[in-house]
């Protein structure tokens, strides 16, 4: 392999340390030089809009930078120390995690159930199911929250009306400390489940029909076929959906902000960590402090993502 590499120009030649032929080296250099122009636009954008803000944000977290002042000074770890002692940080972080815990399972399970329904449906109503399941996802967040805010109204909202007809007393959904986060979670599930549904539908359509036929011939019932064929066959999709969904749920902000009119809900029961970052940075004008909290949250997301990747890759190995 090495001999070959030094005489012919295989793609491996570039990385082979012992390729000493001048011709090969020249060719490699030329090829790399051309490659730079292809990656340059992306690299520049990546550096300007991701790497640089990351560094600037970290730097800002050590200063008392404010929106209302031009100059700022270095304050060392003051923001970080304040942050670790600030109960609002931990409370809002808990709200975010709680929201993730209560939204991810239904967003995965309901999406799969809806995909199964559509997959089995006849062509005549299939398009209708696909459309109606996916349609909410196309709506802008402002519209979604407006609709649900009215439905949740305690005095004349649809939800309490419906509950009243079956004899269940209604609630003050968005102004109750215990109900506000579940209410927002319900809205979120309704709004975003369509995306996961589409992914599942595509995965289901990729499962060969003869697997089911063979299983049916062997006497496997519907439940057995579901647990032994469908679930394993869509495992990769499930991994992807759970990963995407967890990150999406952790990033909760817009709907919580809009549905509580920016107040964070009664006793901040629905103020996610991004809401608190927004409050500190924009309402409170303290960019330095907000940057420190952003970094804490960044760390949390990284930890969650790493844990999850580990968990799922082990499962994949086992399978």
């Amino acid at each position: 392999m090495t001999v070959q590499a030094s005489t012919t120009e295989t793609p491996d030649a570039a990385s082979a340390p012992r390729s000493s032929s001048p011709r090969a080296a020249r060719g490699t250099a030329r090829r790399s030089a051309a490659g730079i122009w292809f990656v340059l636009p992306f690299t520049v954008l990546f550096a300007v809009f991701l790497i640089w803000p990351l560094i600037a944000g970290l730097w800002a977290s050590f200063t008392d930078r404010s929106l209302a002042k031009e100059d700022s000074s270095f304050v060392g770890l003051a923001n970080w120390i304040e942050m670790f002692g600030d109960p609002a940080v931990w409370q809002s972080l808990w709200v975010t995690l709680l929201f993730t815990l209560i939204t991810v399972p239904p967003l995965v399970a309901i999406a799969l159930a809806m995909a199964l329904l559509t997959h089995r449906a006849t062509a005549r109503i299939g398009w209708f199911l696909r459309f109606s399941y996916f349609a909410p996802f196309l709506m802008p967040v402002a519209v979604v929250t407006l609709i649900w805010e009215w439905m949740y109204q305690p005095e004349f909202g649809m939800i309490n009306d419906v509950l009243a007809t079956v004899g269940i007393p209604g609630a003050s959904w968005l102004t109750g400390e215990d109900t506000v986060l579940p209410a927002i979670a319900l809205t979120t599930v309704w709004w975003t489940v369509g995306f996961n549904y589409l992914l599942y539908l595509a995965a289901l359509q990729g499962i060969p029909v003869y697997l089911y036929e063979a299983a049916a011939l062997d006497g496997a019932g519907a439940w057995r076929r579901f647990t032994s064929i469908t679930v394993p066959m869509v495992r990769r999709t499930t991994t992807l959906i759970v990963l995407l969904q967890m990150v999406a749920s952790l990033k909760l902000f817009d709907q919580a902000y809009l549905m509580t009119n920016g107040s964070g809900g009664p006793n901040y029961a629905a103020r996610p960590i991004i809401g608190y970052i927004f409050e500190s940075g924009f309402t409170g004008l303290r960019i330095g402090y907000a940057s420190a909290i952003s970094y804490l949250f960044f760390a949390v997301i990284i930890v969650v993502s790493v844990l999850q990747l580990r968990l799922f890759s082990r499962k994949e190995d086992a399978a």
Partner: protein
Amino acid sequence: MRRRSTTGPGPAPALGRRTFLAGGLAAAGTAMAGCGPPDTVLSGKRRLRQWNLFTGGDGARMVEMHDAYRKQHPGIDFQTSTFQWGNPYYTKFAMGAAGGRAFDVATLHVSRLRGLGAGTLISPVPTDLLAQHGITRDTVTPNIWDTCTIDGELYAIPLDTHLVVNYFNRPVCEKAGVLDADGDLVAVSDEDEFFEVCAAVKEVTGQYGVVMDTTHAWRPFWSLYRQLGGELTLDGELAIDDDKALRALDFLRRISQDGLAPQSSDGAATPANFQNGIAGLMLSGNWELPTLKDAGMDFGMRPFPGIYGEELGQGDSHCFVLPVRREPDEDAVAAAVEYAAWMLKHSITWAGGGHVPAYTPVTESQEYADLQPQANYRRAAEAVQFDPSAWFSGSAAQLQADAGAIFTGVHTGAVTPKAALNRFKRAAQNLIDTPSPV
């Protein structure tokens, strides 16, 4: 097992050469327009950039006034920018003012003067220049003028006052027998009287007597606390009168627990509840007036009821401010002051939106007296209670947000007034201890 056939990514969407070129040219054109020479050079006109936070009905009225202003000032190239109320506006205001190139004159809530940098980002108004245009302390509601003054310097030119007032559904209140001979809602002089009025109205509506925004209970709280003579100090050590604050909070608890007001009614639901006739009275900002008028409701307005004495109501004032300039530009300041004075003198249009003009010749005019129901609460503007002053207080600022999140539980019964007061005190002390960003 069959190998899963995965389809690769489809072909990239074809971006035609012509489309690309056309797009590039358009982009270049836009870019060049952005960095062209200032308009002043081209047109010989004086440029005046105004920033504001008025949308909806207020926005329409401001545009109407601006059109008239433009017609009378052909020599001025008048440019306006409108941003969304609240945080979206204030962040842009702060950053624009810090950058020093954003605006020549901007609107602001007077309660945010300290939080947005009076002296650091906002420069004092030359009062002699303003006086030349006929605007002095004598021609503006004096208590509002004084709120615009910090350490003897005038930092803002007040356009109006807006405050919580008492709306009443005329047919409902008539049936309830709570209207006086002139067809106005009867005045009350204590808590029990107000509860009696609410109960009488409730008899008619069948559901509630009064409705108010329970998610933003700061406004009624502050109104009641001030009626009780309460003071709140936010400098250094928090000072609040516990007994008076508890009484005000207990009012919020009682009115909801007794079923006279809904336990929860947010910003959007409150006017809707009033319009739907669920309640016959509403305690809310005067800015809801255009909405209710457009809905064709038969309603009246009067000052916030004097539940604990005088008819004091929480409020604020829209004002004009000038930015701090790194390089002095007297012509720009002169144009900005002239503009602000012009707006004050023509604020009868502004009064159509429910706000009480700050310029007294307008509020004393016959034209204003003919405005109904605006004229009925004109005197409330003199009794308006501004928020206590701190960098974190005022409209859409942190203290109001904290109060909203905490007090909403008093209405629903989730927290006792005592617990709510303790939480509020903790939140306020926390803000006091936070290093000031301005």
